């Protein structure tokens, strides 16, 4: 999730506030696929298809709404992007209610409860964990090794430099938005049995995602892993020693502490102003 947000930010310097809704779409698509077409055994196929569908949706949104920012029609870009993606979020959320109703759908389990050594663990969680790690690895591999991945790194690091190399940046902006949302979509599909499927199911992961990238510093990919771990640790420590009901608050306190020490996050860099 954070991966997706940060990826889009890194490439286009835009925050997509409707990430959680793409997550939700991914979950919905997955649910429909599993209950009507594929059946629970082929859940992994569902994840791939959901991610693909969300990818196209994301690319389309970028094409229609975000791209004009770069061709220079729109002033006050950050404001524009924020408002549009927020509106997008509410739009999608309510569209989902409109279509699916405010009900909670429970997709079939991906795997039964299992045991690791002596520790009982829900199969769904295990699947989600492995799936997420797999996605991360895949994404990392794609970014580091493939030509397209290199081009993305290029765009993030030096927009004009990558143009002199002959990369069509506008096309890659669109791809980046698509891939970023697809990551969210895949996440939604993977986590569907845990968070269940309903119009608001993208919310919790989004809060986590944003907290993680603020802690990590925008645009830093290795920072995300560190920040994710730190956040996880802070939350479990807080739950263990203080009170488990206020998990979210520990994360926020951590965020506040880190930001008061390092205003741009752990790995973020300050920009030169004048």
């Amino acid at each position, binding site marked *: 999730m954070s991966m997706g947000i940060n990826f889009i930010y890194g490439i286009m310097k835009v925050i997509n506030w409707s990430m959680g809704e793409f997550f939700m779409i991914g979950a919905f698509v997955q649910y429909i696929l599993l209950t009507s077409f594929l059946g629970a055994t082929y859940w992994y196929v569902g994840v791939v298809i959901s991610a693909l569908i969300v990818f196209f949706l994301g690319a389309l949104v970028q094409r229609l709404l975000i791209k004009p920012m770069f061709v220079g029609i729109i002033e006050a870009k950050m404001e524009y992007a924020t408002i549009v993606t927020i509106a997008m979020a509410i739009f999608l959320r309510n569209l989902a209610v409109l279509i699916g109703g405010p009900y909670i759908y429970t997709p079939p389990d991906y795997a039964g409860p299992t045991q690791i050594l002596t520790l009982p663990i829900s199969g769904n969680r295990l699947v989600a964990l492995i799936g997420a790690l797999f996605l991360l690895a895949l994404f990392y591999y794609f970014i580091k090794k493939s*030509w397209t991945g*290199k081009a993305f*790194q*290029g765009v993030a*690091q*030096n927009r*004009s*430099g990558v143009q*002199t*190399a002959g990369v069509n940046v506008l096309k890659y902006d669109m791809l980046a938005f698509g891939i970023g949302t697809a990551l969210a979509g895949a996440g939604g599909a993977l986590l569907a049995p845990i968070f269940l499927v309903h119009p608001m199911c993208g919310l919790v992961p989004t809060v986590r995602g944003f907290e993680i990238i603020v802690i990590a510093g925008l645009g830093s990919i290795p920072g995300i892993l560190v920040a994710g771990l730190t956040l996880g640790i802070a939350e479990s420590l807080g739950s263990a020693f203080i009170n488990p009901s206020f998990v979210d608050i520990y994360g926020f306190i951590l965020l506040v502490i880190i930001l008061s020490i390092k205003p741009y996050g752990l790995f973020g860099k300050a920009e030169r102003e004048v």
Partner: protein
Amino acid sequence: MSMLSIENVTAGYVEEIDILRDVSLEVKEGAITGIIGANGAGKSTVLKTIFGFLHPRQGKIKFQGREIQNNLPYQMKEMGISYMLQEHSTFHDLSINDNLLLGAWTFRQDKKRVNRRMEEIYNFFPVLSERKAEKAGYLSGGLLRMLSVGKEIMSEPTLLMIDEPSVGLQPNIVTEIYDLLIKIAQQGTTILIVDQNIMKALEVSDYMYMLDMGEVKQGGPKEDFEEDIREMIKVSLMAE
């Protein structure tokens, strides 16, 4: 033979402010052409306009006979124009190797050619080959400039445009860079160079243009410039 010609181009970034006014110039095949002038004269803008970062308001740009003033940067690259920016055109978080690889973007499908070019570039810049895996962000200014040159000639361009090759570098490295440029030119690449270092530009160029306030003040073979260049600078300092 003229490879690139700019015909009466007017261009600017902000509405109503023309940085270039009715500029015409020509780049002859196989030669080094230099553009000099005080800062603010619009030298860099000429290059940006050619490469499609900026589209002219009026006038035409022709490359090998084809009009290109409406092309986008990536199309320019595909046509065989390379452009080394004045600011860094490298990627600080990528290795030297990857930086060069991105220079081969346009023919990335052709694995053989990519490998061949990589080898050639490393032969050309032995220093870079020693530090292949290092991130570009850790390189010194001089090496970074070399890396930029390497990245841009990776694609074997027909025309190489260079913006301020020597700015901010130590004198001995400056000499090295210009030697490199001459070597590149000898391999048959046409070069268009924008330079504040007038003496150096004069040394390497075959043709020169002098720009002032967005207009071409003087242009022609370098011999025309050689004699009274000091006088010209003084005059431009004192001019009314």
